């Protein structure tokens, strides 16, 4: 008969033996990097190629959250043990995050060596963190509706487009917010001329509004709108096999920057790994892979894209110079008033 003590001793021995090869124990020794990232094609490439390669090289695991919105989740997590180590959002949200001390102010080449190779816009005074890619916000239009290629933002106000123009619910979409500022520049004294922007917005009615860019793509593809505010990536991705009668136009007044920004949370327990991830995302080979997958303009100057991408994306200092970066700090400070005003203007 086996005594109780013997049974316990043999049980402990077996458990110890089993744990020697147990992946869960090994896993506990592996660092985990918690990041946010987009879904769709971007998410597919990240999960299939980019993240596994990073995990292999840095001997870590990456936990990627694709469930937007990210900032409210970061807001309620402890600052000394944040839910994310790296926050990937568009620029305006990073400005909200930095005000609350949820992300770092600047990422420099000291922490992330590849920052030395980025275009100036990627680390300009309009950016918190560092930009890894940008899109150009301009006008998408149907090529089968007899419309001339728009050369100015004013083309959207053409009376022929009444009810067939598309925009965004400004309180919830940064493209809509950037477009509002652009209206101030085109019809008034500059990006901060809200009175001129409100007046110009009123003149765009009737306009179909959506709350995210994917919906705008669908509206353009289904001809529900003939022209709408959209980023170049949302149009160029339908080239080739996906060819659709839509095209993108860069207005002469300039295109607005829709930056993909990475930043590190100050309370991250794996800050070095977080910086390594941003550095990795700025590597030319990773930049090329993602840029060509989703038609984003890479922030790293050293990236050489295939000819068809190079022709359309912002890959030279001259093309990059056409980018206009909104002052999100200024905008966010007035956000409540702007939201109320535009809601009243566009309702009804």
């Amino acid at each position, binding site marked *: 008969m086996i005594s109780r003590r013997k049974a316990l001793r043999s049980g402990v021995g077996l458990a110890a033996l089993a744990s020697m090869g147990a992946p869960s124990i090994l896993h506990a020794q592996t660092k985990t990097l918690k990041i946010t990232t987009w879904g769709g094609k971007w998410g597919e490439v990240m999960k299939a190629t980019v993240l596994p390669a990073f995990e292999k090289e840095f001997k870590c695991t990456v936990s990627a959250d694709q469930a937007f*919105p990210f*900032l*409210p989740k970061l*807001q*309620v997590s*402890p*600052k000394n043990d944040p839910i994310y180590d790296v926050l990937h959002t568009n620029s305006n949200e990073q400005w*909200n995050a930095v005000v*609350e001390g949820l992300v770092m102010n600047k990422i420099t080449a000291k922490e992330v060596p590849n920052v030395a190779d980025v275009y100036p816009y990627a680390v300009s005074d309009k950016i918190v963190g560092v930009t890894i890619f940008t899109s150009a916000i301009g006008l998408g239009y149907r090529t089968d509706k007899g419309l001339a290629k728009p050369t100015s933002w004013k083309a959207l106000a053409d009376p022929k487009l009444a*009810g067939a123009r598309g925009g965004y*619910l400004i*309180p*919830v*979409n940064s493209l809509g917010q950037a477009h509002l500022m652009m209206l101030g520049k085109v019809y008034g004294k500059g990006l901060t001329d809200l009175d001129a922007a409100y007046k110009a917005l009123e003149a765009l*009615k009737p*306009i*179909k*509004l959506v*709350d995210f860019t994917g*919906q705008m793509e669908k509206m353009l593809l*289904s*001809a*529900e709108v003939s022209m709408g505010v959209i980023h170049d990536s949302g149009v160029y991705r339908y080239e080739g096999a996906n060819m659709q009668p839509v095209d993108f136009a860069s207005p002469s007044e300039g295109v607005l920057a829709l930056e993909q920004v990475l930043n590190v949370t100050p309370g991250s327990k794996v800050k070095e790994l977080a910086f390594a991830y941003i550095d990795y995302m700025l590597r030319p080979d990773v930049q090329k892979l993602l840029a060509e997958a989703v038609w984003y303009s890479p922030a790293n100057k050293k990236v050489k894209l295939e000819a068809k991408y190079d022709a359309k994306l912002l890959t030279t200092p001259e093309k990059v110079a056409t980018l206009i970066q909104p002052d999100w700090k200024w905008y966010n400070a007035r*956000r*409540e*008033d702007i*939201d*109320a*005003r535009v*809601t*009243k203007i*566009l*309702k*009804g």
Partner: protein
Amino acid sequence: MTNVARPSPIAWLIAPAGLVFVLFFVLPFAVMTAMSFYSGNPVTNPNAFLTTRHYERFIFDTAGIFHEALWSTLRIGLVTTLVSLLIGYPLAHWMARMQSRLGHALVLMAVIAPMLTGIVVRTFAWMTILQDKGVINTTLMQWGLIEKPLPLMYNEFGTIVALVHIYVPFMVLTLTGVIGRIDERLEQAARSLGAGRLRAFVEVTLPLSLPGILAGSLLVFALSISAYVTPSLMGGTDVLTLPMLIAQQVGTSFNPNFAGALGVILLLVSLAIVVAYNRILARLAGGQGMA
């Protein structure tokens, strides 16, 4: 020896439901209410202070959109409930009185089938039907019956159509159970005493089915006023509801405190409407409170 009062077995059975209610409604609601009286998140921000400014912002509504959003939310909820009742009641009555078991099962499947598809998918389906280049407008324009698209979407009409489609099954299923339990012989007795079909229905079946009408209406009303996806996709520029404003405050304005205040206000106003509705129906039924 003293007898220690022991909880009855039914109390143990209710306990899990009570625990779920406390954990997933009472506690979150208490936290939301507490947050609505703070300037920020007191857990992560030591400078957050007690304030009533979020409620003042709503009450004084200098922006001029919050009262309209509340009214719009309630209007959509009430119209959706009414239309769902008008569509659902005859269907539920027919189902409850159906003799064929196979027929009943087939109709029940038809009622439940739409619920097996997600709300987002069903809303997108409505968009393809009602939008300017949708099935209806394209067909009518091709037939030369209209010159420009009918305004079927991007307004309250489209929102209510989609909401009714989504919530009618809740009304039907609630009413079927109640109407099915009404003794048919009561209606037959009324008719044998000289009442016509309509009078027998109005004076016997309808009053007896009021608890079902109340339960179904409250369910549909509660679901409609808290709907977010459908008004967002179908409403365009014309529709702004409180759930949309709450989502904006949390997701893009990053102001959970004001979102909490809006949530509390929506709940209080809805509760007031529910109590009033309950009393009106109770009076109509000649009884006391019904729920």
